[in-house]
């Protein structure tokens, strides 16, 4: 009874055919995950912040809190 001939060639190619798609796939998933968990939320956060930003209202609040040195709170 003879054993089947083992694979003697193409071992690396077989390994690469298995691992390389996984490697590229994982790295693209990591990049896409970063894009949608960090990059896009940050852009959206800045867009949302400035969409209804009232600079004079914020300035007045900061002025009353005494943040500025060039402008004293009203009444002082």
């Amino acid at each position, binding site marked *: 009874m003879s054993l089947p001939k083992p694979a003697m060639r193409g*071992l*690396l190619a077989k*390994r690469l055919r298995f*691992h390389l798609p*996984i*490697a*590229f796939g*994982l*790295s*693209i998933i*990591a*990049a896409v995950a*970063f*894009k949608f968990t*960090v*990059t896009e939320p*940050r*852009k959206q956060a*800045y867009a949302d912040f*400035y969409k209804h*930003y009232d*600079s*004079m209202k*914020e*300035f007045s609040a*900061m002025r009353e809190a005494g*943040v*500025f*040195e*060039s*402008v004293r709170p009203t009444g002082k």
Partner: protein
Amino acid sequence: MAHPTQLGFQDAASPVMEELLHFHDHALMIVLLISTLVLYIITAMVSTKLTNKYILDSQEIEIVWTILPAVILVLIALPSLRILYLMDEINDPHLTIKAMGHQWYWSYEYTDYENLGFDSYMVPTQDLAPGQFRLLETDHRMVVPMESPVRVLVSAEDVLHSWAVPSLGVKMDAVPGRLNQAAFIASRPGVFYGQCSEICGANHSFMPIVVEAVPLEHFENWSSLMLEDA
């Protein structure tokens, strides 16, 4: 200003800094992509039983790992050049301020209309009021009008310094005998902190920069008051 355990950049207070933040996110995403790929490949390489040492003439993989990095570099370079040219645009400033570095303080000159100039020394730790920030506060702040393009001409009187305000996205070397130009727009009112960014002697860490952005009317009142006091 920076806060303890902070890992990323400070919140942007100028349009340029916002662009820099987004570019950094883009570059970091590419770094993560490459790092994940390399980490997986390293893991695969240390866990294999294959030990063929005679690997020659692998044209395909040589082409792949030449073209792919070139493509990645182009993907990084295009947004980078975009921001570079954006920062270099003719910006028609409403105000020009000279920031002069000394050992170890900054001096600011507002000479567009009158001759206003003052020094800006760090507030020593023992003189801080409650709520003030250690090693960041100064006795006189550089006040600018908010939402207006401002040009800062940076130079030095003695040794190299560097005028930097991270939240405005500005860093410019102060070189004796040379005028360097930086420009920014403060998108919102507030107080923005920075520190000298070029080693300049014993008190290099103790010559901070504070920029205060206020509405134009208050900036004009402040500059009139400063001129009267001078």
